[in-house]
């Protein structure tokens, strides 16, 4: 993998003006050079279609078999016409479109293709942030001499990705990341959209507030309660009023409604929580199955935590029984952690303490909260062990980045924290 600069991260304190160096991390992109948001179209489906070209033009759903319990991971545009969307239960999708083709997901394969795309993007601009497996932000500052004006540049980029991978994408161009992201969404599928500086407000005005990244169901519902449906209506509310209603988040909302700025985007770049759930194909009481599922969930969450260079303070376990009764139980160890073993030990402890062994379990979930990048407390008594676990995690992460998540797993042979 090429070295990919990221400016994911952090609310950095205001840059000290006396500091002579300007790193890509904090350098604001020039106002005229837009930021590009590259979003792969129906990524999982597109990757599957590479192996199954005969399915092109058909409604395709990735997620599992239609009689399984899981949810839709991705749906082709043809399937979306039937009302199928991601995160919908597979059974609902099957009801909406009985003729759809249902495929099992192959996440290792997707992350391989994601890496290939990251390499292509890395050759195109030195500043690339992979925001997730299928989307990335590119700072186009300084690329003009190589690739020409922005719109021409992203046109080339889109064709290049298509030719070298066979995968379609949409690209949005805007003065801020927020505008670029909204633009790529509007450009789908396989489109390009440039929002020139100065026309952001007009572009955003008529969109529903839900289209702004970071505004989820909860905020949208709160705004709806105030009679606010569109971005224009949101922009019309004074920042003071929004702050009164939503606290610090209100200030961010106001900036979002105006098309945001780089600093504003960085606030939301850090996740507030990381969680993974698993719904069992058959409800289970089998502790071995529960433990191994928990192990898998904790490792997935831990990997994402480390990828984001964060550590978590609180570990929350969700147990949903066959009756659909759902319980969440949390524990906050003395120190924040980013180690799979610590997360797993805590999750297992919570499960052992709170599980009603008479009831079969339908779903297990692990959530990490209290995320931050702050330094780690070093250990007085067994510094070596911690050091080893850390090295192990990094090595495992590197292997997973190359070969896929499932290629390397925690064994039962590792000591767990607390054993001595």
């Amino acid at each position, binding site marked *: 993998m090429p070295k990919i600069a990221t400016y994911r991260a*952090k*609310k*950095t*304190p205001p840059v000290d003006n006396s500091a002579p160096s300007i790193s890509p991390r904090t350098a604001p992109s020039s106002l005229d050079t837009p930021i590009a948001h590259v979003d792969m179209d129906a990524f999982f489906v597109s990757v599957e279609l590479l192996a199954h070209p005969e399915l092109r033009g058909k409604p395709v759903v990735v997620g599992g078999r239609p009689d399984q319990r899981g949810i839709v991971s991705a749906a082709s545009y043809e399937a979306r016409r039937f009302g199928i969307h991601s995160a919908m239960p597979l059974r609902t999708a099957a009801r909406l479109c009985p003729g759809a083709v249902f495929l099992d997901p192959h996440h290792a394969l997707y992350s391989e293709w994601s890496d290939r795309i990251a390499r292509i993007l890395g050759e195109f601009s030195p500043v690339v942030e992979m925001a997730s497996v299928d989307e990335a932000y590119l700072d186009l500052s300084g690329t003009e001499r190589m690739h020409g004006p922005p719109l021409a540049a992203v046109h080339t980029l889109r064709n290049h990705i298509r030719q070298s991978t066979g995968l379609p994408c949409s690209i949005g161009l805007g003065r801020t990341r927020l505008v670029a992201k909204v633009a790529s969404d509007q450009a789908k599928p396989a489109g390009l959209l440039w929002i020139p500086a100065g026309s952001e407000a007009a572009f955003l005005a008529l969109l529903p507030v839900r289209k702004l990244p970071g505004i989820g169901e909860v905020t949208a519902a709160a705004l709806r309660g105030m009679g606010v449906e569109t971005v224009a209506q949101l922009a019309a509310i004074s920042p003071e009023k929004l702050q009164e209603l939503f606290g610090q988040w209100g200030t961010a909302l106001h900036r979002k409604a105006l098309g945001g700025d780089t600093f504003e985007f960085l606030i939301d770049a850090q996740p507030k929580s990381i969680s993974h759930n698993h719904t069992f194909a058959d409800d289970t009481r089998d502790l071995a199955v529960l433990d191994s599922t928990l192990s898998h969930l904790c490792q997935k969450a831990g990997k994402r935590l480390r990828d984001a260079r964060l550590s978590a*303070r609180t570990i929350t376990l969700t147990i949903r029984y066959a009756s659909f009764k759902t319980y969440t139980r949390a524990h906050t*160890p*003395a*120190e*924040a952690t980013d180690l799979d073993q610590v997360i797993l*030990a805590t999750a297992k*402890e919570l499960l052992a303490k709170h599980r009603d062994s008479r009831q079969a379990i339908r779903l297990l979930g692990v959530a990490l909260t*209290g995320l*931050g990048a*702050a*330094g*780690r*407390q*070093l*250990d*007085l*008594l*067994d*510094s070596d062990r911690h050091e080893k676990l850390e090295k192990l995690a990094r090595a495992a992460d590197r292997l997973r980045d190359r070969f896929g998540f499932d290629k390397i797993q925690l064994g039962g042979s590792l000591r767990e*924290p*607390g054993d*001595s």
Partner: protein
Amino acid sequence: MEFSVDKQEFLRELNLTQGVVERKTTIPILSNLLCEAKGNTLTITATDLELTIRTSCDAKVKKEGAGTIPAKKLLELVRLLPDGEIKFKLLDNHWVQVVSDRKTYKLVGMSKENFPSVPATPHVLVALPAGLISNMIAKTSFAISMEESRYTLSGAKLLLKPDAVSIVATDGHRLALVEADHKFAGLNAEVGVLVPKKAMAELKNLAAEGAEDAEIEFSQDESNLFFRTGKRLLISRKLTGQFPNYEAVLPRDNNKIIALDRDELNDALRRVSQLADSRSRAVKMAFTQEGVELSASSPEYGEAREIIEKPYKGDPITVGFNATYMLDFLAAAVQGLISVELKDEQSAGQLRPLGDDKFRYRYVIMPMRI
């Protein structure tokens, strides 16, 4: 069972048992006190199975016997009763009648047969000076681990030698060690025991309740520790297992040393840590030629920087520490100069009060990687 006691005297002993009575217990009898009237004494016992407190007060016993009474209700009621005599009488069905003047109450008791038996105290091993022990517990108990999973760290190690006593506690991130000279009559060999956190707290209460020059008689059997001072007895289950080899982690070659006034350092740390990351409480400590610079920053709150001026000729160094760990120690150390001794960014730092002529007190604290 029928007896009467003086309210104030009874209340004082009742208060001492409250730390032990379980609030949320799955075993109902453990929320009760065992009251035993015999001769001219009332003995009360509380236990949570890990820790037992037994104490007594003078009583006029009309009829000897024993019963159990809900501890919390009894305490609340006795607190509210006027000063003077309170009469107790065991009724049928284990109920206990309480009469003060013309006020009558009946509390639902439970059979005394169900109350856990209290182990017999073995012969006294050694007498500990109460004031000294109480002081030493205050200097160490805050460093005991809160994590139940780190079993052997959930207590402090009490080490008795023929001519010295020491207590050491650690949670794996910092370690507090205090030693004092004291001649123990009749002690020929070293005795080391692990005392659970809760027992340490109760022992300190007990030591503080007694007179300045009171003594605590210490003894042990296979599974319990016994501390008796006067009529009060504390029994704790031993923590079994191996306390970590703490001597191996005590710093030996920390050569970057500055002595700072305790209050000055304490105040500066408290201010600077206001702007530290609320999760990690990380504060940077830098030794420079100007002195010691303390700084902290957090994305939510802002940043802080303070310099405590102090001549320093050694190599400059910057180390991150958890401010809470530092402040815990400063609150327990005596006034005057504190020697801050560092080695490098990854090795344990050491803090020692220089003005303490009674105790050899050292605090070892691991840095944070920032």
